[in-house]
């Protein structure tokens, strides 16, 4: 893997040079100390020291609302051809979010490959950047606090400069285009990189133990904790909307006014919503809020582990920040791990 050094004072020039490769998107300041990925209007609006964006990068690949195809009586089904070969360079992506894309890749490359997702995946270059964890970050516990692939270029803070790891041929092209802005890495840079890498682990204020957790989840299926959580949860779905690895969507047809043509669309959905498991005839497999919140935890922390060998959570902390009922995933996991959760109410048919 090629590695070079980029002085911080050249970052504005480097960002502009990136426009040679496509539209540059980066974390931008929004109101109330929040951040969102968006098209870079000028360098001064880029906030590389952000904690987390409101929505994760998945919005570029699995759009909140997406048109899949058009249909009409005369022409049948017509694929949507949009954006052509327009490329986006997504600049300033944290490790946990890069890791989340690797998880989404696994899902969308499954039995039925999702070409909508992968077409966009091919059109978006990723430049990662390291970060300092805040009080809601637990990516270290989720093994998502560092990545060795999944990026074209990754920038690590060295103080006055960034160490740039080149991950792909696109990353190499980006470095070559900005040629003179990059410098050779010295031995002292490498030592500083290693020192900061070792220091970073100590910066985490939030940790959660996941050892044996899939098994513990299995054993605590009937825990009263799920009922308590259901009473607190508002079923608003905010946690799913901001989650970088939630990928559920609803498919619907939107008819035009002529009632003879229309579009098939898909829209982000959440398993917290009552309609998510509602089927024809009015049967609902997850009628109660406690059923739905429990399902979400079991899908991400248990089912996904069985299917893909790891939880579908990267510890970004977005759900903790977004939940209007102050449900904290770390506290839920701790409670399930703790002795006090081992209470089995009869109505929940606990021990299977």
């Amino acid at each position, binding site marked *: 893997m090629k590695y070079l050094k980029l002085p911080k004072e050249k970052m504005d020039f480097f960002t*502009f040079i990136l426009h040679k490769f496509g539209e540059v998107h980066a974390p931008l300041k929004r109101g109330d100390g929040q951040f969102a990925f968006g098209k870079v209007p000028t360098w*001064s609006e880029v906030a590389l020291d952000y904690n987390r964006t409101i929505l994760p990068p998945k919005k570029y690949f699995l759009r909140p609302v997406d048109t899949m195809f058009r249909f009409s009586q005369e022409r049948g089904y017509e694929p949507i051809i949009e954006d052509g070969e327009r490329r986006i360079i997504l600049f300033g992506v944290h490790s946990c979010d890069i890791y989340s894309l690797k998880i989404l890749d696994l899902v969308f490359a499954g039995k039925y490959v999702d070409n909508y997702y992968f077409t966009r995946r091919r059109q978006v270059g990723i430049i990662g950047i390291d970060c300092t964890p805040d009080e809601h970050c637990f990516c270290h516990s989720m093994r998502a606090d560092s990545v060795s692939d999944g990026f074209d270029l990754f920038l690590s803070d060295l103080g006055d400069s960034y160490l740039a790891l080149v991950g792909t041929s696109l990353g190499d092209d980006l470095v070559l285009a900005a040629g003179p802005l990059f410098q050779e890495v010295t031995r002292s840079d490498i030592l500083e990189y290693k020192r900061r890498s070792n220091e970073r682990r100590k910066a985490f204020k939030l940790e959660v133990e996941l050892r044996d957790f899939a098994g513990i989840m299995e054993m605590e299926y009937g825990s009263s904790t799920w009922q308590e959580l259901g009473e607190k949860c508002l079923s608003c779905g905010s946690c799913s909307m901001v989650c970088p690895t939630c990928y559920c969507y609803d498919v619907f047809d939107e008819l035009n006014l002529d009632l003879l043509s229309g579009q098939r669309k898909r829209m982000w959905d959440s398993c917290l919503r009552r309609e998510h498991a509602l089927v024809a005839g009015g049967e609902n497999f997850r009628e109660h809020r406690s059923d739905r919140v429990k399902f979400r935890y079991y899908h991400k922390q248990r089912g996904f582990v069985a299917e893909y060998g790891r939880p579908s959570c990267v510890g970004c902390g977005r759900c903790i920040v977004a939940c209007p009922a102050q449900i904290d995933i770390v506290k839920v996991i701790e409670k399930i791990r703790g002795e006090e959760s081992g209470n089995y109410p009869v109505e929940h048919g606990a021990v299977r």
Partner: protein
Amino acid sequence: MAKILLIDDDPDFVDIHTAFLEKNGYEVISAYDGKQGFQKAKVEKPDLIVLDVMMTDRTEGFYTARQLRGDEDTKSIPLILLTAIHQEEKAFHFAPDEVWLPVDVFLDKPVRPERLLEEIKRRLKKE
């Protein structure tokens, strides 16, 4: 009378060149940052724009140039980029590029007013 929009954060530069261009028969309007410049370009529809690069931040004018070229109302207005950026960044050479840096001319500051006038005349004649 052709209308010229000067976008530069240096009031002295704007004052001197406004006086010079007015003396040479042009109507001159001005803006002091990229955002204001873009808005004025849309509303005033100048015949030519002279744009500085290093304003609120060092690459602001580059972004303004792209914004001007990406907007229906302003995309065909001749654009002269006038900047001292190569004094700041000697290692990298910035030059006009149809997609990346879509400007008509790239002039390095300091530039003699006569040289600027010559370029303005040439660009307006082309129009």
